[in-house]
């Protein structure tokens, strides 16, 4: 197991390196740079433009820039933003990581809890109207983009309830009520698609394990239906659901980009979005690497969770 984790980590490192190179080059292929943006329509003279470009080191060839950047990384310095007076990227972005992580986690949690609940409901009432309702509901939510869900929820609350989320984000630690109000709609909007997917997956995998031989054995022991479904069938469906969650994470992370933007949540999603538009290269690179790292780590964590759930993986015997 340890060797396995080490190997995954090594692969993760390779992936991160590839991502870095890819993003570093990609971001420079985007037309315009921070200088264009900052001195846009300002009446600046060409000399002023050139001077700023030199200050940012943008006049050097890409490979030199990459080299310089890597040298910085080696010193634990992810560079400085081109904006806001050159704040160090590391700090800029560490402030925001918890926000996005909590948003993502909450959305995943919502997707999982609600999704599994609905899935189980549908599975145990298979064939009933409730089952059909859950399934159509799931498809409906799978086909509505998250920003539409968010906008509709926002508008509905404002028009009918005269309520809107607080304008200024305050961390959970500072103002929990404010935080919950602020996160509610984005979390729901981010989580609905995942919830729908999870419900479908939970339903089908639960039905599968309910039809399996070992569940029949448990029934033959005289166990109550509660034990059969809640203990054996549920645990056996976990793997499938876990896998789905892993896939959903990517979607949720992507979703944070739009939703943080909409709801003024100061997370990395908002940061990267504006950084791309403002050509703030150091921030773009750092954020992308963060996202990629999160992805890589999640994949590893999910693999470890599999092992936690499934002793066959834990003890190193493959599944058939």
């Amino acid at each position, binding site marked *: 197991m340890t060797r396995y984790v080490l190997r995954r980590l090594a692969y993760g490192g390779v992936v991160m390196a590839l991502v870095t190179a890819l993003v570093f080059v990609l971001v420079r292929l*985007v*037309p*315009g*740079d921070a200088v*264009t*943006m*900052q*001195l*846009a*329509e*300002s*009446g*600046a*003279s*060409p000399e*002023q*433009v050139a001077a700023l470009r030199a200050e940012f080191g943008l006049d050097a060839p890409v490979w030199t820039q990459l080299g310089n950047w890597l040298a910085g990384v080696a010193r634990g310095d992810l560079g400085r933003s081109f*904006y*806001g*007076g*050159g704040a160090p990227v590391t700090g*800029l972005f560490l*402030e925001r990581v918890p926000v996005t992580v909590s948003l993502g986690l909450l959305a995943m949690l919502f997707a999982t809890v609600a999704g599994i609940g609905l899935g189980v409901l549908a599975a145990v009432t298979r064939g009933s109207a409730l089952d059909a309702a859950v399934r159509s509901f799931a498809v409906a939510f799978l086909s509505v983009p998250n920003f539409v869900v968010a*906008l509709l929820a*926002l*508008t509905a*609350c*404002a*028009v009918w309830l*005269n*309520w*809107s*989320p*607080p*304008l*200024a*984000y305050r961390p959970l630690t500072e103002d929990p009520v404010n935080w919950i109000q602020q996160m509610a709609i984005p979390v729901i909007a981010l989580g609905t698609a995942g919830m729908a997917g999870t419900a479908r997956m939970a339903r089908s995998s639960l039905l599968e394990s309910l039809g399996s031989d070992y569940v029949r054995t448990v029934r033959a022991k005289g166990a109550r239906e509660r034990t059969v479904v809640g203990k054996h069938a549920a645990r056996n469906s976990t793997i499938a659901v876990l896998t789905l969650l892993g896939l959903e994470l990517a979607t949720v992370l992507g979703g944070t980009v739009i939703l943080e*933007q*909409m*709801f*003024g949540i*100061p997370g990395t999603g*908002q*940061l990267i979005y*504006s950084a791309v*538009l*403002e*050509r703030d290269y150091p921030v773009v690179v750092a954020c992308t690497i963060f996202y990629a790292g999160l992805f890589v780590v999640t994949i590893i964590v999910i693999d470890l969770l599999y092992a936690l759930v499934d002793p066959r993986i834990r003890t190193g015997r493959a599944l058939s």
Partner: protein
Amino acid sequence: GGGSDEPVGDPRPGGSLVWQLPAEVSTDLNPLESSDPSATGLISGSVYGKLLDWRTGPDVTEMELEGDLAESWEVSEDGLTYTFHLRRDVTWHDVEPVNGRPFVADDVVATITAMKERGLQAYMLEAVRTVQAPDEHTVVLTLDRPFAPLLEYVAYHTFLMVPREGIEGRYDLDTVAIGTGPFLLAEHTPDVEWVLRRNPDYHVPDRPYLDEVRRPVINDTAATTAALRSGRLDVGTTSDVTVADEFRDGDHTVTETPGAPVSFYLNPRVEPFDDVRVRRAVSLAIDWEGMGETVRGSFNLTSILRPDVSDAALSEDEVREIRPFDPEQARRLLAEAGLPDGFATTLLVQRVDDEDVREAQWMQADLAEVGIDVTIETVDPGTGIERRRTHEFAMTKALRTVHLPDQTWRDFMPGYIENYALVDDPELVEGYARTRTTTDDAERRELHRAMQRRMETEIVQGLFPIQKFDYTIFSSRTRDLFPVPIHQGRRLADVWLSDQPASP
């Protein structure tokens, strides 16, 4: 003015105004370096003071200069000496390291010198040779040559007075704002909110009324609308007329403010726009007024100059006369130019709001009528600016945030970065030079008008065909927040909140 039309009581002090900031300040706050509209929107006038300002108020219709930090000013006969008499009761904000010391002529000298040497304002001070302070409260600018637009520039919202300490780098101008304005910059959570707090030592007695101005960063229309509805927001802006219309009959007041002109450039290096007849045909083929009505709701039909800022702007009728919506004429011109069947081309659209794209579609449909087959290419501002600067476009449309006539004409002078349309017209250059040196208002106005006509008929490479309006939506408790064409934060000192409580 702002607020509702019912009779209101007397202004009362106190309260916290929540006013949307449509975009986070992305660059630094340094008044010498930053042209970021959100940064100036935040600090200009409210935190930093200027020597001169424009008058605001319920009855103001004309652009009229008044003193801010300068009590009065004089211009010598020959137009080569400008003398400003500073107020004596002004102190800097009580913030380290300036600590509320009095504002003096030396600060002005330091600021203007730095602006001329390294500020983005350098072009405004082209003609200024020396800046001197004969005494604590007098500043004298000596010019090489007469420079007519100088006073307007001095009142412009980027012409902010900075304490000498700041100029000399004794604190960080990028992040700390120490000014003379009615408010102090109190708090900032990046991408979330800026908070301005009442400056207790403000030189105007009993001002400002407000204890606090909160500027939450909200760039999404739906979020703004929802917040206005729920009362979390007192003031919000939108360029979307449908959104504004939804607030017209409720607890809110909507004011319409002339905003940035739509800019439209034709690249004479790209065929067939090398032919002025083709360019002219394009400008005549588009129903600009229809576009303004449909897409913007309220708008001004304009030529190059902004009617809200300059009396030299052509009137709507004049514009209609020289640039009628005349597809027939356009077709004729195309035929003359050897393109009776039209041609295909592209329109690069810089997208900030949906309106930008809707306008493009409108233009596309109109051009299609005369046989010009347009492909729209929408791009983000970064790409848009870069491609305009490098002249990689055939036609392009964006918004141009300039105000003053002098500033506007720079865009069409050879050698400037913003001369996207590659205008190179000796007569225009000549006219421009004359507008700067002539001190006679009437003569200058005529020059401007002639130049606009020339742009519309002879050159036709850059047009500012309409001026969009922005809509400001106020909650009913917001009082005396008067609309202004150019950003003037100082007016916040007069704003007050009625006791009608804001919703939670």
